[in-house]
């Protein structure tokens, strides 16, 4: 997307197209203020790319951009998962520890000689099970979403620590590693290749699947309707209870898939994997323009949000002057700014 837009904005001979684009974006924002954060996220992403290119160089090139996708495939999946939940006005704090449990269990089973397909299936199912448990607690026992998923977060982390407190290394010859293997698509000069991993393809499939479900199916419309007003959608006869459980099941399942993608790339699983990823996923979703209170949001925006966070990590590493400990503080700060921006936008709409 950025590659397409960049030359349009930079090139002087296409000024008319650029200004046309700007007026069009302006019109969209004016007619629907809730897209403003999404537009802001895209602008920020492009701005970060330009700043990075000017300040550190070697950002707009094949291998940096494909590495951005490869290294953040799991975060993109998590952001998609979180989008579903936040759209209904809920939250899932358990994603990070579900990944820890799922990947530790998966690596241990794979190393114990289990069939890799069964291991991958189990890793995903662990996520599904956690999501189902959260969903049932929230829908049928009226536990607040953050309490239920917080309990699941502690449970997942606890079970992962119970399995192992050591880093578990996936055997070198394990077929699961194939999902993290890099394939060259375009063989550029030196190492400047377009590379892709099966993990990235899985992430893209998840994104397209989520886009289809949210915008083209009845379930997707119900998800938005619940976020708008749960009681109204129940009165309209929408399947509120089923959909509410379903979003947590989707979120859990996608966390399991993210665990597979992440573990296959890194080859190591540990009980402390994924601490703070809830925050990254929430931040990616919120940066991408999904309202924390539910009802408004775009799954493609969340992907941009995840890429903004990924690019931020790249820039921090390139800069070298910022201690890596600052990353969580900066992520938290960005999340805060975007939440405040959302509040400003929504309060304007209400008055």
């Amino acid at each position, binding site marked *: 997307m950025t590659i397409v837009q960049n030359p349009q904005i930079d090139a002087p001979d296409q000024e008319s197209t650029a200004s046309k684009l700007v007026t069009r974006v302006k019109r969209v924002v004016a007619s629907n203020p809730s897209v403003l954060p999404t537009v802001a996220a895209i602008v920020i992403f492009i701005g970060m790319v330009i700043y990075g290119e000017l300040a550190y160089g070697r950002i707009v090139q094949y291998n940096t951009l494909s590495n951005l996708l490869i290294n953040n495939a799991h975060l993109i999946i998590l952001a998609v998962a979180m989008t579903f939940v936040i759209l209904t006005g809920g939250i899932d704090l358990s994603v990070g520890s579900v990944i820890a449990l799922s990947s530790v269990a998966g690596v241990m089973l794979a190393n114990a000689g289990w069939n890799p397909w069964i291991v991958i299936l189990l890793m995903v199912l662990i996520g599904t099970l956690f999501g189902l448990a959260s969903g049932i*607690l929230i829908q*049928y026992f009226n536990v607040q979403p953050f309490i239920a998923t917080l309990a699941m977060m*502690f449970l997942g982390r606890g079970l992962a*620590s119970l399995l192992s407190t050591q880093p578990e290394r996936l055997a070198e010859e394990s077929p699961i590693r194939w999902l993290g293997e890099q394939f060259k698509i375009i063989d550029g000069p030196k190492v400047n290749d377009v590379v892709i991993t099966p993990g990235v393809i899985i992430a893209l499939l998840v994104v397209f699947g989520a886009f289809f479900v949210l915008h083209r199916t009845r379930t997707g419309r119900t998800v938005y309707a619940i976020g708008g007003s749960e009681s109204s959608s129940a009165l309209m006869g929408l399947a509120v209870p089923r959909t509410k459980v379903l979003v947590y099941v989707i979120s859990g399942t996608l966390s399991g898939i993210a665990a597979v993608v992440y573990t296959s790339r890194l080859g190591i699983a540990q009980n402390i994997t994924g601490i703070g990823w809830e*925050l990254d996923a929430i931040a990616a979703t919120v940066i991408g323009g999904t309202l924390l209170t539910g009802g408004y949001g775009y799954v493609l925006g969340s992907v941009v949000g995840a890429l903004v966070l990924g690019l931020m990590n790249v820039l921090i590493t390139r800069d070298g002057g910022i201690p890596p400990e600052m*990353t969580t*503080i900066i992520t*938290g700060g960005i*999340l805060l700014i975007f939440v*405040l921006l959302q509040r400003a936008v929504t309060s304007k709409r209400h008055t």
Partner: protein
Amino acid sequence: MSNAARTNWLRELIRKPFFWGVIAIFALLALNVLKDPNYLAITVNPVNGNLVGNVIDILRASAPILMIAVGMSLVIATGGIDLSVGSVMAVSGAVAMVFMKDAGQSGSVGVALGAIGLALLVSALLGAINGVLVAYIGLQPFISTLIMMLAGRGIAKVITEGQNTSATNDPFRWIANGFVIGLPVVFLLAIAIVIVVGLVVRRSALGLMIEAIGINPKASRMAGIKPSGLLLTVYILSAVLAGVAGIMSVGTVMTVDVSRTGYQMELDAILAVVIGGTSLAGGKFSIGGAVVGALLIATLDKTIVFLGISSSATPAFKAIVIVVLCLLQSDRVRSWFVQRRKPPQLRPESLPAKPKQEVAA
């Protein structure tokens, strides 16, 4: 008649939300006594006259949990939650340790007081950020405190430059390891703070106002309560208490480990509150319940070590207990129990008691 009065008194006791917590503490202690009949024995150290024993250890370990549990129960009463207590503990410990390391002077009371003052000030500041975000900007409590939970650990790492920092200061160490009239200072300090907080919230209208916010913020504002200032105070108080807990927990070893100090203490705090019978939905709190919850958690931690069970199993177990207690608090499960209780109520002699029991259920 006296018999009836006694059963009434017993029923009152059982109805207390933290009754089962007390029973659980005694059950755990009994389990330990089964393994070692001398478990409860308390001896007097002949050299310095201090009491020594497993029970004393439990009391000492319960001090930081007491602090964060009391803070958390007030925050939960307002209908919020404070996920940042563990990280605030780490920040407070880091500030104190770095201050004392730079100041040197291992015997100075002034340095110890300075470290404590600075640590509590920084904690209060973090709490104030939480409070402003929740009370004045209107963020959901779990989002603002989640940001603080993860950013706080980053702040602690920045303060200590990512290293485990040690310092030597005898007065500071005394807080965590010293004894007064044979009892550990930390426990006495914790109980004193709990009593002060308890008196302030229960002997004034503050406690009622806090609960009113949790029940219905809009109605409480119409009744003349200013929720913003009160919310801010509650979040600051929770952070300051977490800061005290941080000082207590780094004081025992005089080292701050930025990734382990206060790690998952949110779990303990929430667990203590739920065990104390407080609903996580807000609108109610019980300081006594939080104390029982904190003591139970400390007993549980020590029991698990004593019985030789791997301590890595405790977080999972605690999480399951939270889930079960949440389930027990939900209306759906309660209605199941009420239905099961109904048949005996239909007997003629117990008919007058029926409405009362329904209220209790």
